[in-house]
């Protein structure tokens, strides 16, 4: 008997997902979060789920934690008091940031407050040139003096980021030694260790975020560990990283900057895993919950990663306008486009008479008007209810009874009356506008990156995702939409189906036509040794350890790189010509042109060290029960010009091979799937719904 336990702590609830490693069978439990000490809810939900499942604590092999503790600490300013040391003349790097305003026409804009106040930022005499040669040796006395000052200032953490340290870490190492000697209590991060990549401000920001989170995240994870050990769990304790993949509590305490987007990553990982199990390697993932919708992309079984990310920035689908509103990090983050369109997003009419949806959200409290908990403004959920798409008596399995009249009244007053429309048309309008925003988000992660959505499968989940997915796929001509079982808790499965992962990067700006392949190989081998050591410490056997290599390349003179896979051996001439071909093609795909005669260069080489954890099999379901249709209901479809009486299916009674013809609804506890006219859904042997256009 062995189990895997996933714990996701959100603002309102702490969710647990327990999976039987042998059968893949999953169950869930939920308790209220305990923000003053999240480890209490962590333990509470753990004990509850083990009791309900009748599982002994020692039978849990892995606990995987998805957490927003790091992000929240930054947004709420609860990070450690941190000092910053850099090259003399550059201590204002954080104050200056990118020198831009985060919004163009707002005269009352604010620039994000530096994470280190200016009086704790110091320049020390030392200098490297752009090739990493020492121009000015580190001034030991000055460095000692700064260390003493920071000690007297009682900082908890210190970040060191010298110019060009990504090429030559010598001075940072020396500075680290001096800090340890003079101020041993301080937690220290060096930029050359955390994010050894060119561009000082983003590297410094990454280093500061890392070190300023270390005390807090360390205590937080230690606290959880103690409680779990006391409760008899001796499982391996792991944390989800922003890039997918997990690492140990110890590693997370050392490099917390890798977990800033730990929560949202899980959904994309779950989609990637399901897709791989179903032999679908190219996936658009669509996760719609109460406040936002998130679009992600999986290519060849791996989620797309970005390194251009700002923590605490204003969420916005698109380029530009919110840039500079947060704190940049250069560690890999799963590339998600998040928009303010969830079930609770509020619909309104602007001063020009246009119907708008979001970004304001009614949240869970007071919630949509139909919750009858005091909310009076219409939301996406209200609109779905008025259109008959949600069952008022079976929302969250009947946990909340929805009030259709309140939903109608809210839409009437705030939208329909102002637009001179009837309430149903207004409700339909709200859905269509929300859908359009979601289509834009899906386009940004696919078309904008040079991929044709028609070559992808849409996997939709989150409580509200399956209500909208069919329409989105139709709009984008995505041929297949897949709705997994229990969409509302699907993303939590991502915690349980991932591998141990450690990412490394080395900057090597080298022209490809003069590439020192031996040096590249040396760099990879060095990173492989580091990865191997960490994974071995985490209990991985040699046979479970794998490496993947990547290079980030560009035309000489460009600043944005494209990532390409490399083989796991020293590059030979034919590898390089193949790589160049791939690069020109990737450039053509991304930007519409390539320049095959232009010189190219390596920028960074990246290594991912994987510790493979066995994946549970998908669980098969039984045959269809006779009465899978539980009732019928009138549902609005614009393409049919009004309400159509539709069968309502009980998802739990739909067995392998069952077929459902649209228009129809499939209901389950945590979600509702809408199948439009002219579409069919079939159920595979694992219970997934495959929605495709009906044959003519």
């Amino acid at each position, binding site marked *: 008997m062995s189990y895997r336990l996933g714990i996701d702590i959100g603002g309102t609830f702490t969710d647990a997902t327990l999976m039987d490693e042998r059968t893949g069978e999953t169950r869930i439990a939920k308790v209220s979060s305990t923000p003053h000490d999240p480890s209490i809810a962590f333990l509470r939900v753990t004990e509850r789920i083990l009791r309900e499942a009748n599982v002994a604590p020692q039978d849990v092999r892995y606990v995987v934690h998805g957490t927003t503790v790091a992000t929240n600490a930054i947004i709420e300013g609860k990070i450690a008091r941190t000092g910053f040391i850099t090259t003399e003349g*550059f201590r204002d790097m954080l104050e200056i940031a990118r020198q831009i305003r985060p919004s*163009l026409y707002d005269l009352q804009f604010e620039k994000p407050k530096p994470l280190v106040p200016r009086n704790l930022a110091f320049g020390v005499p030392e200098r490297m040139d752009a090739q990493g040669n020492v121009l000015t040796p580190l001034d030991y006395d000055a460095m000692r003096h700064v260390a003493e000052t920071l000690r007297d200032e009682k900082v908890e953490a210190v970040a060191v980021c010298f110019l060009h340290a990504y090429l030559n870490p010598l001075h940072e190492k020396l500075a680290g030694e001096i800090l340890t000697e003079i101020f041993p209590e301080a937690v220290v991060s060096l930029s050359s260790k955390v994010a050894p990549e060119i561009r000082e401000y983003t590297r410094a920001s990454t280093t500061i975020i890392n070190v300023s989170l270390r005390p807090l995240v360390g205590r937080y994870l230690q606290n959880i560990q103690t409680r779990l050990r006391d409760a008899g769990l001796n499982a391996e304790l792991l944390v989800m990283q922003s890039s997918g993949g997990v690492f140990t509590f110890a590693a997370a305490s050392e490099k917390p900057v890798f977990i800033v987007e730990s929560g949202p990553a899980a959904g994309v990982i779950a989609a990637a895993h399901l897709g791989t199990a179903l032999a679908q390697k190219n996936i658009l993932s669509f996760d719609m919950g109460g406040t936002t919708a998130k679009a992600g992309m999986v290519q060849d079984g791996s989620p797309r990663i970005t390194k251009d990310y700002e923590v605490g920035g204003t969420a916005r689908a698109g380029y530009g306008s919110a840039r500079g509103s947060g704190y940049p990090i250069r560690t890999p983050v799963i590339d998600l486009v998040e928009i303010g369109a969830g079930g609770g997003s509020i619909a309104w009419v602007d001063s020009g*008479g*246009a119907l708008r949806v979001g970004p304001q959200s009614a949240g869970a409290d007071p919630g949509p008007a139909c919750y009858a908990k005091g909310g009076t403004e219409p939301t996406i959920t209200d609109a779905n209810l008025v259109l008959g798409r949600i069952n008022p008596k079976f929302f969250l399995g009947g946990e909340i009874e929805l009030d259709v009249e309140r939903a109608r009244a809210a839409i009437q007053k705030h939208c329909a009356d102002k637009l001179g429309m009837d309430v149903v048309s207004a409700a339909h309008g709200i859905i269509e*506008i929300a859908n359009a925003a979601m289509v834009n988000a899906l*386009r940004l992660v696919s078309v904008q990156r040079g991929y044709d959505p028609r070559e992808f499968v849409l996997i939709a989940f989150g409580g509200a995702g399956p209500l909208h997915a069919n329409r989105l796929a139709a709009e984008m001509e995505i041929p297949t939409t897949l709705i997994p079982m229990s969409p509302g808790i699907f993303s939590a499965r991502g915690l349980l189906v991932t591998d141990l992962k450690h990412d490394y990067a080395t900057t090597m700006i080298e022209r490809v036509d003069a590439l020192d392949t031996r040096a590249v190989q040396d760099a990879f081998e060095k990173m492989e040794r580091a990865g191997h050591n960490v994974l071995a410490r985490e209990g991985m056997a040699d046979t479970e350890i794998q490496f993947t290599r990547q290079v980030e390349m560009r035309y000489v003179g*460009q600043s944005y790189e494209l990532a390409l896979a490399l083989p796991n051996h020293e590059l030979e001439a034919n590898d390089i010509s193949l790589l160049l071909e791939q690069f020109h093609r990737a450039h053509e795909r991304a930007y519409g042109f390539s320049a095959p005669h232009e010189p190219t260069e390596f920028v960074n080489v990246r290594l991912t060290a994987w510790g493979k954890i066995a994946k549970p099999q998908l669980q098969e379901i039984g045959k269809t029960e006779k009465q899978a249709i539980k009732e019928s209901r009138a549902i609005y479809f614009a393409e049919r010009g009004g309400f159509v009486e539709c069968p309502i299916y009980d998802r739990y009674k739909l067995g392998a091979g069952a077929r459902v013809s649209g228009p129809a609804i499939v209901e389950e506890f945590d979600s509702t799937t809408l199948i439009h006219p002219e579409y069919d859904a079939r159920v595979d042997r694992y219970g997934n719904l495959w929605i495709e256009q009906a044959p003519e």
Partner: protein
Amino acid sequence: MNPILFQVLASALVEATEEMALALKRSAYSTNIKTRNDFSCAFFDSQMRTIAQASGQPVHLGSLAKFVPNVIRTYGAENLRAGDGILANDPYLGGVHLNDITLISPVYASDVLIGYVANLAHHVDVGGGAPGSIGAFREVFQEGIIIPGVKLVAQGKIDDDIFRLVLAQIRSKRETAGDFRAQIAANITGTKRIAALAERYGIETLNAYMDELLAYTERRARNDLEKLPRGIFSATGVVDTDGYTDEPVHLAATITIDDDGVLFDLTGSDEQRRAPVNSTYAQTFAACAYVLKCLIDSDIPVNAGFYALVKMIAPEGTVTNCTMPAPVVGGWETQHRLTDILFQALAQAIPERVPAGTKAMMAQIAFGGIDPRDGDLYAYYEAIAGGYGGRETKDGADAVQTHGQNTENAPVEETERNYPIRLARYELVNDSGGAGKFRGGLGLRRDYQFIDHDASCSLLSDRDRWGPHGLFGGREGKIAQYFLLRGGEEIPLASKTTIQIQANDIISFRTCGGGGYGEPHERDAQRVLRDVRQEKVSVERAREEYGVVIDIEKWIVDEHATRTLRAKK
């Protein structure tokens, strides 16, 4: 009109221009475009009305609204085919300065003209009298290559003759060639996306909704403008020097707000100079458009529906609407300064909404020479941030771009890697923010060291004589300063100059701080303490200007001494 389809199309059109911006940024070569975002993208309908814009540089966007129709009319819309790209930068066709080169491509769906996509990018060098093509020139012809609107791309193929002819004028050939390809990529992206929309929804439908988008925008913008207090508000100011003489350039603005909206009248501004401070009509229009946009809900889109409300009188032959052959490269200084003067006038009408004086100059530096690493010519350009003005309830931000300009800085490491220079210093200028209840933001110092070669370096900047204005008792921000550091000496430089650099010289560029807002003596003493602690304000200035006495042993406000001192004033 279906309000749902309306919203769908309105956002899809903007997203199309945003996609253009991403394609341009990611594939460009020069630091100025790829890192500093000195470019803008827009879509125009078949009547050449601005329909949608990506968030870019406001001054580019405003001028494109005038420039694109002029270029198309001059070239002849009938001479355009699918896949074409018209290249243009002529200031006297409605352009701005020569560095800003625009590429315009028609969009067709089923052989019907839908409109035009255009992108403007600031090229690091366009030839002319100095590297980076900025300097104190006396005629536009000295400023670089003038492109009147020529077909660089014909049905998808670059015209090699034109390409070579253009590149032959330019110092940084390889970089600029890459940037032109990126501009082409952006238009390919935009053309595809808009054509797909037309095909998906039908051309007539798309046209009808574009009309409605403009009407909607105008409706909302009018609605907001109606809420402004009525009246006539004026202000004057100067550009400190014209670059050729020390004679200040006087600018005058009168804003009339009445039932017809807002009228910007620049009558009274100086006649144009034979010096680089002349702003073209399009450039001045962009300044007024920016100011007007700040007065309405930031959620209202920017398109021809909005531009229709920008009413401006800029007499021909003045520095606000210059005529051929006046040089224009420094027109940005005039334009930028004018923006600040317009806000100064508006401070009488809406004191709670406008900031005190800001950096309000472009603060440009350019240099070039022969790169000793490879023997090739190089050129570098950037524009530096400064202080923002204090506001009714908050300080001005330190070190930001102001008003129509929002270009990023170039990372030190990237700059040192790509160009044969070193940055010796990059830091805030202490004590540069104008004192006030809410103080002005701090200016910025950036020192460029030329290591191992001789170069030519140009400054095109301003505000070394008069600092940004304070409001309601707030003090002026500290002036900008420019120095050549040579052999241990600090030699002052003019704000607009071109000099020959020797190896090991340092150019020290120090921008001005923002103006303060409200009486300095009303500033919360704890805020003064924080500023002193952070060395943004010195102990002496805290005492003299703010009347706050700080005990620097304990880092506390000496309450008693402060009360006494403040009571005296």
